[in-house]
């Protein structure tokens, strides 16, 4: 039982990371109907930026916050400069552009920071927390807190601020929003910026566990896909919940199903995606998109 609870908690911790990245994917999907395949790599890049700042001597939280700022700007600029020209192109073109971004980010990171694995500091104390016989990793608990805090902020932002409302409106009905004076193009760019921020949080939280390298986010991204698919690409809340579910399932399967272990991690995610798409393609909380012929 102790192991079970331990695994659930550490599953929730990784789940929080998946949830952040899944939320980033869903935000962009809702606003522009595009899955951003480069989301993970952008997050990895932001994590490297943070690493450089910490290496240059900045305190962790200063570096953390400035990274979020840089990620936001980066997201906005990428949308404005790279995505904008293909906004109305066929889906294939947009997917190809995000794939192009993926490989560019990956190779640039390798070019600038080399492919050598780098340790990334954790801001949380080393000493694990012990309740009865159950040991909780301090980083796990901290991760959960940070994720929940970010989610709370974003919920409040979208629920209670005029800007959040405008962004939701722009994603929901671009034409009408434009008619009431919302600058839809900029709202999309802000969406990309926010998505980059979530990605950066996920990257900086996962890097201490996996050690920093250019392929850091490959595995995280496939799980974030699974999370977003499970929760539904049309439902941000669903994607977050999906992230936590996927994280816990991954950990429990890894612990209790002996033939899977950690060697078939990606296969588990693949299986989850395919099963969800077969059984309920809209995900748990997604809505069916009805097309008019």
């Amino acid at each position: 039982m102790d192991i079970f609870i331990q695994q659930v908690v550490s599953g929730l911790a990784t789940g929080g990371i998946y949830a952040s990245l899944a939320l980033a994917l869903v935000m962009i999907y809702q606003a522009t109907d595009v899955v951003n395949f480069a989301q993970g790599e952008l997050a990895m890049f932001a994590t490297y930026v943070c690493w450089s700042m910490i290496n240059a001597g900045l305190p962790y939280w200063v570096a953390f916050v400035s990274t979020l700022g840089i990620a936001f700007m980066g997201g906005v600029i990428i949308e404005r400069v790279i995505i904008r020209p293909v906004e109305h192109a066929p889906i294939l073109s947009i997917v190809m552009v995000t794939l192009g971004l993926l490989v560019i980010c990956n190779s640039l990171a390798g070019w600038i920071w080399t492919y050598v694995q780098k340790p990334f500091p954790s801001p949380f104390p080393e000493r694990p927390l012990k309740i009865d016989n159950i040991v909780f990793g301090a980083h796990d608990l901290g991760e959960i807190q940070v994720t929940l805090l970010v989610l709370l902020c974003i919920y409040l932002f979208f629920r209670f601020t005029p800007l959040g409302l405008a962004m939701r409106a722009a994603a929901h009905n671009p034409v009408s929003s434009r008619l009431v004076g919302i600058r839809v193009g900029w709202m999309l760019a802000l969406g990309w910026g926010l998505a980059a921020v979530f990605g950066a949080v996920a990257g900086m939280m996962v890097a201490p566990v996996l050690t920093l390298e250019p392929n850091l986010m490959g595995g995280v991204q496939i799980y974030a896909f699974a999370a977003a698919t499970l929760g539904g690409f049309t439902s941000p809340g669903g994607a977050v919940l999906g992230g936590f579910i996927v994280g816990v399932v991954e950990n429990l399967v890894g612990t209790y199903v002996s033939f899977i272990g950690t060697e078939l991690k990606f296969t588990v995610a693949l299986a989850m995606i395919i099963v969800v798409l077969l059984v309920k393609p809209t995900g748990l909380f997604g809505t069916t998109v009805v097309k008019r012929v």
Partner: protein
Amino acid sequence: VSDSRLPRVVGLLALLAACALPFFLSNFRLFQFSQVCIYAIAILGLNMLTGYNGQFSLGHGAFYAIGAYASAIMMDRWNISYIWTLPVAGVLCLVVGFLFGLPALRLEGLYLALATFSLALAVPQILKYFEHWTGGSQGLVLSKPNAPFGLPLNPDQWLYFVCLAVLVLLFWLGANLLRGRVGRAIVAIRDNHIAAEAMGINTALYKSLVFGVSAAYTGVAGALSASVIAYVAPDSFNVFLSVTLLIGSVIGGLASISGAVFGAMFIQFVPNWAQDISKAAPWAIFGVFLIGFMYLMPFGIAGGIRLLWIRATRSRVQQEGRSAVPTQAHTTT
């Protein structure tokens, strides 16, 4: 030379030139050209699926891997001749692709992209897991076959001719498939699947079949690569292989047959030149080309050539006072 015959003449000349290559190039260069043939086959498979049928696959590296490993295991375990492993790998991938295509039917555009992308990510792990068959992360070391019947060719030259022959055969089959009734049905599904269904096309069957055939092409390419490289290892079939194939497909021209060759040359030779700059440079350059082509030349090299050709002939036609403007340019999307 009339409009319709010119491509055939050019193709024939290119084939003649390709046959002459082994007698001028070093073994290493020849090996690269064998790779070009292999990539071209795989990319043609991908073109059928993505270009002609409009289904995404970001995971064709998976079928390439299945073909390569099927061939390698047959050669390694049962001493089956490399030639016979090719059709077996093709049929195996046809079946696997068809089966993967069945659930894929329910997935539209992006979801299919997601599922195939995850497949591409998962493949190296799966290959490592079945260590008993695949040799784990060590991979399998094979030997290059010698030329049969005492032909005065070294293994590299012989393998090049094998690749070229398979390429010609598969391109001929593919061109006939895409030009006929089946091909029109495939394109109709891409352009408007509801209308296609209303015309009596069994879209479900066709889509799965195209997935299967496309996988089979890629599988044969993978099987050839196992012989040519004489080595298979799980990490060479990572997600970047799938992305590479897709890049080749897009740069060559998605809905075109000749585009597959251009794309294959691009993905084979550009990284070689770029490697001189930095280890990471090839991918940065791939990415820049990919995005650039999406902006400037969405129909790829083949589409660009076709447009230029149409422009050239159109001005000539106008001079001659006829109005026969070829309309083929717009069959690509």
